[in-house]
């Protein structure tokens, strides 16, 4: 097994083998995190900058922890407290940081394609931590890792992705990854939040009925309703959304089997998930967060090595 990717820009560019290498290496890092000393010296010669042009707590903390557990040096950068607010371009900002001998860039940006643009112009390895409404590859990897950990496989697993598919980079990355690994995918949500030709374009099923979708699936990955991205009214009220597409205890109890509930966080309790579902033993939401660190360690470890070879 080997790795062909040089950056992690999106799942779309990854081969099936690359995905397997990431997931398999993450398993070894998960074991590292159980040790009395939860740290390895692998990246002690590497400096990483976390460039966050968009707010994030979970992803940024997860990346930072992963970097520290690999012994890398890290710098954090948030757009609001930087020269970006003085009008500096993205490329200038990054080139200035790289001239201080930084080896890898982890970036979140509100513009779709921003990391792809950077990858064309700078020599460092780039890891996409979410770009606009395009992709969030490490989230998809950790979701797949969590599904595989729970069910033992990805092949033929039936995964439902529920909620705002239109604006969700988590949904897109998950769909690419699950399809590549042979899982079955159905998306479910209000018609206004599901792109019209998604079924033909990505080879997945669409179902607007929540109960039917839950009855079909093994795993339900429930997305957050992204209030900050709703600049037009796509459903009438949060209460109506909760009544039609929110997952309640009662709904789960009516099903003929026990399904796994996932959520990338942060949860809008009482909107897409009710509290007694989010905190139930069916939910693996906190395991997803735990696995996130191991998966990001694997990504950083594997891409840091690629970077060294090309230099």
């Amino acid at each position, binding site marked *: *097994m*080997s*790795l062909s990717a040089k950056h992690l820009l999106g799942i779309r560019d990854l081969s099936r083998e690359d995905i397997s*290498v990431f997931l*398999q*290496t993450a*398993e*070894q890092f998960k*074991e*590292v995190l159980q*040790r*009395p*000393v939860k*740290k*390895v*010296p*692998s990246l002690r*010669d590497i400096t990483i900058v976390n460039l966050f042009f968009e707010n994030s707590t979970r992803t940024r903390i997860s990346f930072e922890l992963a970097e520290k557990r690999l012994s890398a040096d890290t710098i954090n950068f948030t757009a609001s407290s930087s020269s970006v607010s003085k009008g500096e371009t993205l490329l200038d900002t990054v080139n200035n940081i790289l001239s201080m001998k930084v080896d890898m860039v982890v970036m979140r940006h509100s513009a779709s394609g921003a990391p792809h643009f950077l990858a064309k112009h700078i020599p460092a390895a780039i890891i996409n931590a979410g770009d606009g409404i395009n992709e969030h590859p490490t989230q998809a990897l950790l979701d797949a890792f969590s599904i595989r950990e729970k069910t033992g496989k990805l092949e033929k697993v039936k995964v439902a992705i529920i909620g705002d598919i239109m604006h969700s980079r988590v949904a897109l990355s998950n769909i690419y990854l699950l399809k590549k690994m042979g899982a079955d995918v159905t998306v479910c949500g209000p018609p206004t939040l599901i792109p019209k030709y998604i079924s033909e374009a990505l080879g997945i099923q669409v179902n607007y009925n929540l109960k039917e979708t839950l009855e079909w699936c093994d795993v339900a990955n429930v997305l957050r309703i992204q209030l900050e991205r709703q600049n037009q009214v796509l459903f009438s009220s949060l209460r109506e959304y909760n009544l039609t597409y929110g997952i309640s205890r009662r709904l789960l109890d009516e099903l003929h089997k026990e399904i796994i509930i996932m959520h990338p966080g942060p949860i809008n309790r009482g909107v897409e998930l009710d509290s007694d579902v989010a905190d139930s033993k069916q939910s693996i939401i906190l395991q997803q967060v735990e696995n996130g660190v191991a998966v990001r360690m694997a990504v950083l*470890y*594997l891409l840091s*090595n*690629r970077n*060294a*070879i090309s230099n």
Partner: protein
Amino acid sequence: MKSILTGQQLTITIKRLAHQVLENNINLENTVLIGLQPRGIFLSDQIVAEIKTEFPSVNIQYGKLDITFYRDDIRRELHLANQTDIPFSIEGKKVVLIDDVLYTGRTIRAALDALLDFGRPEKVELCVLIDRRFSRQFPIQPDYVGKSIDSIISQKVKVYWKAKDGKEEVTILDALDA
């Protein structure tokens, strides 16, 4: 290609190694055995099996350690990790590290670093099947040796295991043969 140990000799040698480990660790309660991934575990599996046949009632603490994340040549090429499984504490224990071939000593250096992240053992010993004794690059010596051989850097020593390679044999390969 020259055979150093045939399958039959290998079996006898492994039996001896198991007995030597036992001789120094009569009370296995305070001793743990740790095989090094990937190829050291074929030896450690057999040593553990041998001890079990000798003392069926004894409870052996046996783990597997992968040293990939501690290598000193991590930037030279991509190394993929194998499973580490040490389901017990090594704090205050006597650890016997087990590997197939001791060559430059770099793997054992990395293994010692990795091991210390699991706790502070009282003592660490090293058990190897083959000791390429004149090729050391670090000051590391084994405590239990299956066979010492004199080889030069251009030669390759290969240990074949039934579980992995379908046959059991140790051979030495000259650069010219390859």
